[in-house]
């Protein structure tokens, strides 16, 4: 129902978003993943008609939304990355304000406010001022404010950054429920692979303004079918060992982890004996090693050379 065609945005010299093609089918839950500065928020701003694209188009049911954004605004609920609330007002007053702004019918508004408060689990705190809330509670009100007018499509821009696990779970549950029970179409932006894995049918991975990969979880994992990941625990850290492993022909990448190192090598290259030899040479024991199934995290690393969270 919603698609972008070669959507691009250039700020002065910088290409923030570069020819992005995306689509959202009705009732889908789609993830948009990418490291800081990948262009996620810029993409979302363009989709939600807040920002004019430099080139490309956004179409709702086949009709361009750029000239006439009123249609998409009607069906859209947007949860911005920042807390877009009046801190000096209570949760209830904020929702009442946004409800009126969104022209929710008077007799319906009170019911809707209570419904969305129930959804985000803040019904009993509604009279308190937003500025007294924890980060997680603010985020929940931030989401509630986007739900009042029952949008068909809900876009969330990193709704879980910097909050406690309890609030985070609550938010994930809420979004899941909205998608599964009311059939709301979801576009969920995040740094966290496991959130997207949990919530979304499909994922777009962005980096440097481009979509570097997309598809369902299994489709993405198949990208890594040419690699093995070996997790090795060592008796002590050793820089020369790291270097000598990096020098091996079949090894694609080596990373230091908390316990030791992780080696990504060409599939079926059988480098185990080489690894043991190398360790012996510098007098280091391999305490433990394990072949790992690749995770989406690894896919991401493979594609962008970055971990998601830094």
């Amino acid at each position, binding site marked *: 129902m919603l698609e972008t065609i070669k959507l691009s945005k250039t700020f002065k010299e910088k290409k923030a978003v570069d020819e992005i093609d995306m689509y959202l089918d009705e009732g889908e839950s789609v993830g948009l993943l990418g490291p800081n500065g990948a262009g996620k928020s810029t993409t979302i701003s363009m989709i*939600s*008609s*807040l*920002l004019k694209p430099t080139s490309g188009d956004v179409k709702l049911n086949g009709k361009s939304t750029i000239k006439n954004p009123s249609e998409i*605004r*009607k069906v*859209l609920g*947007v949860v*911005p*990355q*920042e*807390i*877009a*609330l*009046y801190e*000096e*007002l209570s949760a209830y*007053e904020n929702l009442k*304000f*946004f409800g*009126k*702004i*969104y*022209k929710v019918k008077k007799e319906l508004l009170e019911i809707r406010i209570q419904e969305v408060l129930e959804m985000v689990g803040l019904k009993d705190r509604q009279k308190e001022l937003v500025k007294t809330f924890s980060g997680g509670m603010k985020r929940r009100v931030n989401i509630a*404010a*986007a739900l009042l007018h029952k949008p068909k499509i809900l876009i969330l821009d990193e709704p879980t950054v910097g909050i406690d696990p309890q609030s985070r779970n609550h938010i994930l549950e809420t979004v899941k429920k909205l998608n599964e029970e009311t059939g709301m179409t979801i576009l969920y932006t995040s740094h966290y692979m496991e959130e997207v894995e949990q919530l979304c049918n499909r994922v777009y991975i962005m980096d440097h303004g481009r979509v570097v990969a997309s598809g369902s979880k299994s489709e993405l994992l198949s990208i890594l079918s040419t690699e093995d990941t070996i997790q090795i625990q060592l008796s002590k850290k050793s820089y020369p060992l790291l270097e000598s492993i990096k020098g091996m022909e079949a090894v694609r990448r080596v990373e230091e982890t908390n316990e030791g190192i992780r080696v990504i090598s060409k599939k079926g290259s059988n480098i185990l004996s080489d690894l043991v030899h190398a360790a012996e040479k510098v007098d280091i024991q391999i305490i433990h090693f394990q072949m790992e199934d690749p995770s989406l995290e690894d896919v991401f690393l493979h594609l962008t050379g970055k971990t998601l969270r830094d």
Partner: protein
Amino acid sequence: MYPVFLAQWMKDKRRPYLILLFIGLSILATIIFGDIDRIEQSTVSVYSTEPNAEEIEQKWIELLDNHDSIEYVLMDKEEAHAEVLEGESDVALQLMENDYRLITATEMPGVFIVEQHVQQVFTEEAKLVAAAGTNSTLDLRKEVAEYLESPPLKVQTESIDGGDIANYDMGMQLLFGFTLFVAMFTIGFKVNGITADKVSGIWNRLILSPVSKTNMYIGHLFYSFCVAFFQMMIVFLIFKYILGYELGNFAMIVTIAAAFTLSMISVAMLITGFVKTPEQFYMVYPSLIPIIPVISGVYMQPGTITNPVLQFIADIFPLSHGVEAMMDVALYNAGWNDILLPIALMLLIGVLAMGIGINMVERRK
């Protein structure tokens, strides 16, 4: 528009202190700085050492006793000198048949005012005596007074730039000046709410809503108008009804205040166009605004500022026009026609500043 207005009101309702503080400040500043020549009463110790002292004293006291802020008190010579020495009174006045002496120990401005007054009374009397010849001046004075009641010809004295020279009431000018000046802060801080909404993301939420952009602006600006206007009205009402100031035709003062508020809101909007965040505004605005009353000459007698560049800058801001119009109403009984020009100028400034301001705000994304 209405919900936007209401939300601003709900926010402020919980913290009305700033407005209350501003109202108090307007009144306090006017009383402290504006009332100097009202509060400062000079007492003059009067005595005479002539043989017919009593007669002389009575005659002159009667003539002198027509000044608002100078009180002439009779006492004997030693007492009078002692008072001056101890600083109880600024000046003592020794009366003679047709002359006087001032005895003082200080160079206070009060002494100067007393000197001026005494001299004026003596000169006038001397003229009357000269005109009356040997006759008693009493009848002549009566005649003159009657004549002045209905003169065949009136001469109005005007200074070069058209203002009345006599009796310029600085206190009144400061009253209007301070009230409008403090209101400029209220206006700025309220208009800044738009920038705050933009930075917090609330503005984006509103843009996605069915509410039109015009209504969003009007909601904010109308609220700013109401708060600032309310603040000024409270101050004026307190001055008029509680402190007993003569503000002239109140409906006209209200109209000028409204035009000033509209105009100043636009200027604040224009300044908003130059800043990116509400914090920047809080830095720029309060350092810019206090300059305006200074170059607008609000703290000085009219005509003090003659530099054409400063005058031009002052004319760009609504403050000088607002204070001038209010002074015309309060002091010179100006009619609606007389205040039409300053009101038109303020509205013109308003339209221009708003046009440019909104354009700049909208252009920067």
